[in-house]
């Protein structure tokens, strides 16, 4: 086991989508989510967390300690969980205390160590707050939601057989660059979940690569473009997070034309960071 993290971090992730739907809105017939007031696109926090979980599940499949509590899709339960010799506990008659249950879950599940979880194991329904907090990602500019009609030359029902083909709809954004921001609290890692340096590296890795293993007909071309990490010298941090976030500027270069590629933006990261903060460009 590596050391539990000792520094506060903030990060900015820029990712883009080309001809795809990064996050559909169930209230809008799966149209890409937008902020109705500004027209900017939104990708929810839970959408990004889902991708991080799926990525970790993929690269750490079957490794003890890297289980994922909330999985998607068909689950093949063929692992004999070696992790159950948790701390070499002998099965005994007395019930394990609440904190033991929480510890056990944190030890075994990456997503609980990272994001926390709601457990019924403590008094106030035992919310384990994880150290990593991610906000809604927003696009830099208003997005254009396009609905594309497609045809299929096969039919589902026999009664439609004479029609010969059926129509379907795909929703997409021609292009958008999204910005997500996140926070990592060393204090919660130390006190609550034991999120360690290896987990941190895995988290950076998953932020960079999570779109690479999530391609589908709906997503189009999505990729992480920039991951900028601010590492504070200590556990509590050395300056306000919004000061750091404001140092990452994204300007549009395409003038009046709508943006259609990452080249239509210029990202500048101010290297004038406050004392005690280290700027790391992971991507």
């Amino acid at each position, binding site marked *: 086991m590596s050391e539990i993290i000792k520094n506060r971090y903030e990060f900015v992730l820029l990712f883009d989508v080309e001809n795809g739907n990064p996050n559909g*809105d*169930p*209230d809008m017939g799966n149209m890409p*989510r937008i*902020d*109705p*007031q500004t027209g900017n696109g*939104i990708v*929810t*926090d*839970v959408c990004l967390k*889902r991708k991080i979980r799926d990525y970790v599940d993929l690269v750490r499949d079957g490794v003890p300690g890297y*289980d*994922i*509590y*909330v*999985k*998607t*899709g068909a*689950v093949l*339960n063929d692992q004999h*969980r070696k992790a*159950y010799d*948790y701390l070499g*506990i002998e*099965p005994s008659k007395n*019930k*394990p205390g609440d904190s*033991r*249950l929480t510890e*056990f*879950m944190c030890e*075994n*599940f990456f997503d609980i160590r990272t994001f926390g*979880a*709601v*457990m*019924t*194991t403590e008094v*106030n*329904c035992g919310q384990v*707050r994880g150290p990593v*907090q*991610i*906000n*809604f990602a*927003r696009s830099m500019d208003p997005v254009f939601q396009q609905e594309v009609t497609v045809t299929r030359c096969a039919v589902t029902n026999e009664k439609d057989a004479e029609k010969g083909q059926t129509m379907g709809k795909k929703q997409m954004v021609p292009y958008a660059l999204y910005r997500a*921001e996140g*926070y990592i*609290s060393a*204090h*919660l890692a130390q006190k609550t979940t034991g999120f360690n340096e290896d987990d941190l590296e895995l988290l950076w890795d998953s932020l960079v690569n999570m779109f690479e293993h999530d391609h589908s007909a709906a997503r189009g071309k999505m990729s992480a473009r920039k991951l900028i990490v601010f590492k504070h010298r200590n556990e*509590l*941090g*050395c*300056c*306000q*997070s*919004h*000061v750091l976030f404001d140092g990452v500027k994204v300007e549009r270069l395409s003038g009046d034309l709508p943006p259609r590629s990452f080249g239509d933006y210029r990202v500048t990261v101010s290297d004038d960071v406050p004392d005690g903060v280290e700027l790391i460009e992971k991507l």
Partner: protein
Amino acid sequence: MGFGICLKVWGDYACFTRPEMKVERVSYDVMTPSAARGILEAIYWKPAICWKIDRIHVMNRIAYDNIRRNEVLGKIPAAKVKSALKGKDVQLYQDSNEARVQRASLLLRDVCYCIEAHFELTEKAGPDDTPEKHYNIALRRMRRGQCFHHPYLGCREFPARFELIEGTVPPSCHTGERDLGFMLYDIDFADDMRPVFFRARMVDGVIDVRECLGAGGVS
């Protein structure tokens, strides 16, 4: 007792969930004192002190937005964890396709509040716990933007930016008087998690929590 501080917090979204509408979450119109306390505790808290909210200034217009997300139904069952601890082969995960539910949340947009608060020493305070000491640590943290974990506006996905207000509190955009009805004041942890409610009145954008409580807190 203790000295007063004033902290400005703001963010794009907030959700101070009404307890009577928890499944499809609906936010209160304004921040609750318990959410304000949570923000202060995220920045600085020790068992020796307990933060008391004096006033909440509502700076921005109250506006809503609706977001529907996929959520999971259950919580982690303790019984299953116990049997896993004993080495039984149980399925200790949730299949998010099976346990999925779509829920809408009615959120607040573009919020900005100024929280006026003070702290009181609790019985856990030792001989070297002076109000001056805790006050100065709290001030230093707020000036530097340090925190235990990042404070948030009701839910963790809505982070709060914060800064210490050292001069006068800027004016709110609200004028006149508004009755916000019964709102959650806080959860009384000493009394078996009993929720305490109060009748919130906003006068020129300021909710004077102490005055409202004096007018009859109800639980």
